[in-house]
């Protein structure tokens, strides 16, 4: 009985999330009727979810350490612009498949290198200089956005070569390519968090940095790695973004910042750090995608949708606070 109770409690959040997901699914299905259940709708959802999903993973891992990364969108845009500039300059339409393939590969490597450097800069400021995560990433956000504007002079870079568009729009065995990348990213993140010493340390820093330090953990190194992973993930999201938009620009996806925080918090990641699971985040992303596709099919204005996200974020936090209060009351009595 005791173990059963424990298991139930451990997964109670996940079970609630799955119930919410089913409820959202039924509600949107009822409101939209048959249009919602068509194969095309599900396929377009599977194409839309990964971008936000990978960015949310980048946000979540920093929130686990009681930090936040406001620079993920700016970093994804800058990375995307660097890749797009290389691609539009060096890939000639008359070049052979092999040559352009090599350049695409190099462009992606350069992009990931840029995003890794951005991650290291954030990590350095937060871990070594000891700047609070909000301020450090606010500063880098403005700086990266500045570089993005300088590189593009505010214009859109478009006309990417055909092969890169496969990453964002192609199908492999009927599964959208971005979805495959997302599953790999989420799997890797889950592996790091649950199976490696780094993962344990990330949770420990989020719960109590001082205790963690006295337990012999090099906090600075753990934070540096956390923000490095966060940076790399926004770089991976950038590859999908430029491929899906077929262009890059300094101010794409600005509304994603709210969405990544919302997805993390909805998925059970605590804003105070220390708690949160990849599985929760994935279910939260599916809920958000169902609601957003459903509202879109209903013809609800995009701005009202954003207001609804804000409302949902507050409601989720309220429910979390109230359940936490009930639980502590139960424990004390």
């Amino acid at each position: 009985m005791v173990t059963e109770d424990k298991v139930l409690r451990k997964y109670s959040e996940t079970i609630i999330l799955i119930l919410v997901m089913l409820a959202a699914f039924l509600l949107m299905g009822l409101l939209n009727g048959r249009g919602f259940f068509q194969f095309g709708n599900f396929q377009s959802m599977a194409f839309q979810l990964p971008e936000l999903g990978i960015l949310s993973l980048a946000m979540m891992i920093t929130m686990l350490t009681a930090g936040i990364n406001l620079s993920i969108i700016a970093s994804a845009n800058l990375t995307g612009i660097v890749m797009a500039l290389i691609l539009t300059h060096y890939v000639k339409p008359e070049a052979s498949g092999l040559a352009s393939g090599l350049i695409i590969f190099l462009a992606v490597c350069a992009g990931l290198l840029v995003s890794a450097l951005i991650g290291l800069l954030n990590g350095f400021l937060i871990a070594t200089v000891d700047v609070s995560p909000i301020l450090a990433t606010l500063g880098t956000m403005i700086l990266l956005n500045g570089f993005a504007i300088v590189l593009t002079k505010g214009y859109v870079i478009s006309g990417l070569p055909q092969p890169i568009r496969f990453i964002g729009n192609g199908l492999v065995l009927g599964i959208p390519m971005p979805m495959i990348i997302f599953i790999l990213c989420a799997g890797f993140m889950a592996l790091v968090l649950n199976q490696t010493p780094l993962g344990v340390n990330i949770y420990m820093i989020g719960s109590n940095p001082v205790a963690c330090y006295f337990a012999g953990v090099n906090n600075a190194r753990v934070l540096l790695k956390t923000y490095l992973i966060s940076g790399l993930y926004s770089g991976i999201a950038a590859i999908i973004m430029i491929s899906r938009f077929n262009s890059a620009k300094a101010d794409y996806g600005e509304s994603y910042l709210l969405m990544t925080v919302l997805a993390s918090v909805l998925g059970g990641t605590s804003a105070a750090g220390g708690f949160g699971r990849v599985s929760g985040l994935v279910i939260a992303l599916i809920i958000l995608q169902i609601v957003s596709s459903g509202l879109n099919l209903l013809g609800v204005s995009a701005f009202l949708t954003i207001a609804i996200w804000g409302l949902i974020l507050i409601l989720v936090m309220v429910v979390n606070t109230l359940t936490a209060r009930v639980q502590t009351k139960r424990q004390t009595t």
Partner: protein
Amino acid sequence: MKKLLTRHETYVFLVIIALCVIITSITPRFFTLENLFDLLRSYSFMGIFAIGVLFVLISGGIDISFTAVATVAAYTMTVVSIKYGGNMLTAFLIAAVVGTALGMLNAAIIYFFNIPSIITTIATLNIYYGILTVVSGGKWIYSLPTWFREFGEIKVFTLTSGEGLSYGLSLVTVIWFAIVILAWVILRYTIVGRGIYAMGGNLTSAQRAGFNIFFLQMFVYSFMGLLAGIAGVIQVLLVQTMAPNSMVGKELDVLAAVVLGGASLAGGTGTLTGTLLGVALIAIMSNGMTMMRIPSFWYNVFIGLTIIASVSLSAYRRRREKRRAIAVEVE
């Protein structure tokens, strides 16, 4: 003298002086009264926002929803003024009431449900702005009442430049300065002001010391809302248009200015002098770049670098102080 050197504000001030010298040596048009009055007018709305943000930061919270609050307040004011008429007093009053109400809503969510202020205000920013955009249809309003248009042009005194153009100190700037003085009195001479510092320094201690945390939270966020409402009206006065999308997105710039002035996100510290210097630094940097004909797309690069340098310097000094404090303990 030694005390001055330990203060963040001194460094910001020195940077400003250095910037002024550099810009003036390149373009003499910068260091004129005309340009100064112009800067004081066009940055008054950012300056008013910054005071509200300073209060919230001192109290240990953060608010990024104020641009949306300002937009909602200014929009309500514009619509009501056009439909029912009124004067400048009613215009400011409407915006102030709307702003205060929305600020109180923020405070209530943060206090009663114990939700981190950053998450609450990210959410309310989007709620307020989303609903406003749906209600207003995102339309710009150009046909403002005459009395409203004229108020924005009132000068307290006017001078004539060498080329025969008249310029002067705008009434808008005076409103800003009046708010600065009000804020200074609240922070320095009232129990509420000391309570805000106490709460930001250590919430539990402040509570034990007898401060009413609920009241203080309410005060801080509704004061932010009130100032946001006033700043919203001033923004409409400055550009003579009610554009729903003109303010949202600038919240982090204001936050940056306040942080440049030395306020810390941990709460309990921050001064009005610092905040004014922070706003001045941002204003001079952006104005100087325009005057030196540096392409505007470099702007964010400079601002970003300045913020990173400033917060790194503060963090470094804080750590050094902490180390000193520990050394004393060991002795």
